[in-house]
């Protein structure tokens, strides 16, 4: 399973990669902002995207809207510090399938990944 990890913090990408590795996912491509993700995503053909919201150059919400204009099916989880209900609704309207608020435990992120993949009809297996 190919997973695109979009976050401007390398530390946060490493933390999420460690969780993904525990779930058996090692085919991971990293992007440092929305622009970087938009340039990498088409060729990578991700089966799942984990996307931060607040990033320089292009934020995660803008990326999701841009990606969803051409691709309605890739499962996307927003992983962000934006915890207000209004933001969650905004993200879901933009096309995210699930939402994780930072800080998170490894168990919570694992659970969200598995339920998102199940909801979107994909296997959580690597």
């Amino acid at each position, binding site marked *: 399973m190919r997973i695109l990890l979009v976050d*401007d*913090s*390398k*530390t946060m990408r490493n933390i999420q990669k460690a969780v993904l590795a525990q779930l058996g996912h090692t085919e991971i491509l990293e992007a440092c902002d929305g622009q970087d993700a938009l340039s990498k995503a088409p060729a990578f053909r991700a089966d799942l995207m984990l996307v931060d919201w*607040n*990033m320089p150059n292009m934020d995660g919400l803008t990326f999701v809207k841009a990606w969803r204009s051409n691709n309605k099916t890739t499962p996307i989880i927003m992983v*962000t*510090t934006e915890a*207000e209900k209004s933001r969650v609704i905004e993200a879901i309207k933009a096309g995210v399938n699930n939402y994780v608020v930072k*800080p998170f435990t490894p168990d919570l992120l694992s659970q969200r990944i598995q339920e998102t993949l199940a909801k979107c009809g994909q296997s959580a297996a690597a």
Partner: protein
Amino acid sequence: MDPMFIKPFIASIQNVFSTMMQLQVTVKEPFVKKDSNPCHDVSGIIGMSGDVQGSVILSLPQKTAENVVALFAGCPMQLGTPDFADAIGELVNMVSGGAKAMFKDKRVSISCPSVIIGGNHHVARQSDIPCVVIPCTTDCGDVYIEVMIKPASVSSPAKTVAATAHPAKA
């Protein structure tokens, strides 16, 4: 400063440190900072805009910062490297993001973080916004949150420049 702007930071730093690092945070009595006092060796800064304006600093002595970053990242990092700054930036991002979600009926945006490393540095701020320091104790050492925000609706024109760093030494 309205306590509604302070309590969320206390709850948020306790949540961030316990969730990400299993680190308990004990909060001591907040106080108003005098302009002449410098920050600690490492400062992560986040700007806030929208219904409130101002900035927030997570400030740590060097040794504490090294301990906290090692726990957060899962491995020791050398002070002053981009990865070290990244980790501090992500911590202040999470603390500020969690706090702003607890501001009642306020829509607030936060900036991407900036990090200053260097002993005896000062961070300038708007002169019309007091700085409330929340001192915290952890097993990694002391951590300080400096909150300098006010409601945008009662704002007056900025009297000085926004936060600017003047590290005295690297």
